């Protein structure tokens, strides 16, 4: 099964994940983005694709500043 086909649920609350505004911090910069998260406990889901793609790019940009 490919990662895209997976239907992840929160392991703690058994809730389907919903898009939620998530706030991030890095090196003194704060920014937000909509990401899947548990509607009950707020646990945020970050896929490998996102972590190693857009997030890694963003990290590099912020490190260079």
């Amino acid at each position, binding site marked *: 099964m490919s990662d895209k086909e997976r239907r992840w649920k929160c*392991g*703690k609350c058994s809730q389907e994940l919903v898009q939620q505004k998530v*706030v991030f*911090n890095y090196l003194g910069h704060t920014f937000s983005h909509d990401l899947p998260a548990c509607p009950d406990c707020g646990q945020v889901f*970050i896929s490998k694709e996102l972590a*190693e793609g857009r997030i890694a790019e963003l*990290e590099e940009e912020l490190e260079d*500043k």
Partner: protein
Amino acid sequence: MKLEEATAYTAKCFHGEPASCSYACPFHLDIRSFMARAAEGKWSRAYKQLREATVFPLIVSILCDQPCRTRCQRTLLGDEAIAIRDVEAACVRYVKNRKPQSYAIPPKKERIAVVGAGVAGLSCALNLAQKKFNVTVFEKEGTWGGVLRNHDRFAGFAEELELQFSAVKVDFRYNTEITSLEELAEYDAVYIATGEGGESFGLLDSWNPELFTTRENKIFLGGMLTGATLMEGIAQGIVVSKIIEGYLQTGKAALSPDMRYDKNYCGRYLDHEGAVSKPLVAASSPDGYTEEEAKQEAARCLLCDCDKCMVACEMLKRFKKTPKMIAVEVFADTQVNPPFSTRSLTRQAYSCNICGYCKSICPENVDVGSLLQLSRRGRMNDGVHPAALHDFWLREMDFATSEGSYTAAPRGKDSCEYVFFPGCQLGASNPEYVLKTYAYLEQKYACGVMLACCGAPAYWAGDDKRMEDNLQRIRQGWEELGKPVFVFACATCESLFAQFLPEIGRISLYEILAKDDSIVPTQPFAEAAVFDPCNARGDEEMQEGVRKLAEKAGITVEELKEKNRCCGHGGHIRVANPSLYDEIAHNRAAASEKPYIVYCVNCREVFSLKEKKAVHVLDMVFDTGSSDRLPTLQEKRDNSLEVKKKLMASIEGAEFTPEKHAWDDLVLLIDDETQKEMERKLISAGDLKEAIWLAETTGQKFIDESDGMCLASMVKPVITYWVQYREVGPKTYQVHSAYYHRIRIKEEE
């Protein structure tokens, strides 16, 4: 930080400064760029440069005595110096338009008198007239030219003077001899250039050869009257015009920085390694070069400019900044005020191997690595360092200086004369390296042991505090052992001790081993190249020791063309700049077709990953036979603990029990591909075990109920790790993937 603190590192760098020939040239013509333009037949641009520098290019290209040629570095190759004047003459001949430019600047009200219409006075007069000053030239003879009037080519020279003065307004008063300076009282400045033996109005004894001033305010003096040559006279006229201009604006005669030339620099030569000898281009006609010949001759110019470090170092090549630019940016980065301004050097600062190679090949010992190290320290002290770039190695250092550390005198003793300091990675790479070496040293020299870290991770991270704490621990251990001499297996450890703990005696393990005739190392290859680590630079004993051991093994040793280059590991750049790290490692692996003998485990690891055959010299000495498969990050930690456990047992008869974690019992099944990826990303199995344990204990994870696949994350101070896994048995998990990010999800308030 002050700007001077950073620029002091590169003060001696002369990249971009005039070449030796230009320092010798009376006009300080930038011969290098003139020749580059001439070689391409860009006569118009070359002529413009020549005109600006010499004022009378035709006269100079015929009469210059060419002191530049005595400083032409082509002669170092055994060739004749570039025919600089002949190329200049060709430029004057082949340029299409020699008409002087007229400058659209407002006229000035100040009046300047020039006494003497020889070329020295004329060059000054012309330059001031170009700036729209009111210039009057007094000449006792009936025409201009001074000593040139007697030259058989004077007609041509007079044409040149006519041409160059055609775009300016100057009041020439011929047949007017000035007998007293009082006649010139109405002028704002006066330049006396009356030629050899000419009238000096009694001011020669007060003449300042640097500023051309005299004791009389506003009276300047120069040219052949002061003993200058014809060319020097023209050049002086140009300089004097600038000094007079400054004097009229400020009331003070002074040299601006661009007018200061230290002639001593005309002896600053480069080694021109790899440059090819090329004979002088002979002119086919007595009239001088054809256009093509002039271009060919100009192309012989070596364009002498020092760029050795920027050519040799992959990092400097990639970032395309000169050492001096880097110094300014090191300072500028300390002055930023985000988000209004941002830093420009961060990535480069953390991409340097700090291997010292630039310094070793620099004719002036400029050390860009130390400069970037200063930048790293500054960032760390200011709390603006990107911590993730060095986090992995700092955690490894913390392990090596806590759970992994062990200091002991030899069995049954409290102190020792020697103590073996293997460094944190030797035992991690292969426990036998440390265990067999120690067994040998203990038996032979009653040697103690110190398992610790030299502090390289802190040093390279710019973490002064961590560094100092570690040095303190080492110093204390050394004192407790009775101040023994340290025996080093790692060149980095030894070089850091030399720098930070000079009070401690040092000896290289390889020097000791090489002196022992009973040691006969095995011969893994008939021929090999010794790859000296960067930090062994200057450590002759260590380098020599390894070569002797190779010789004893019967290996024919090839010397690498470039020695002591960093394998890529230095400075811990791997996270900051993975592609640069990869490029450097690739280049070092390709430096010889022969297999390598190495004596740094980090070099060995880098080459192993590049599938370059490399054997650690200890494998030859103690037949430790390290396999080609590198230990994983977790195995390295386990190896370090095994070394400590075995040494403690053999020295003290004590049992060492490593710290126990609740997750230690978990069994992870990791396929080769995933393991390889984890190693590349510096994710250890221990971290994944902890993450899985946390997820399984708290339920804080994601789950795909269709097949029981789980995804969990673990937040460490700097990095958040993620692991996708599935339970396949009791406390047994198959790892499907592992990744990380550095940004932090903000916890809800």
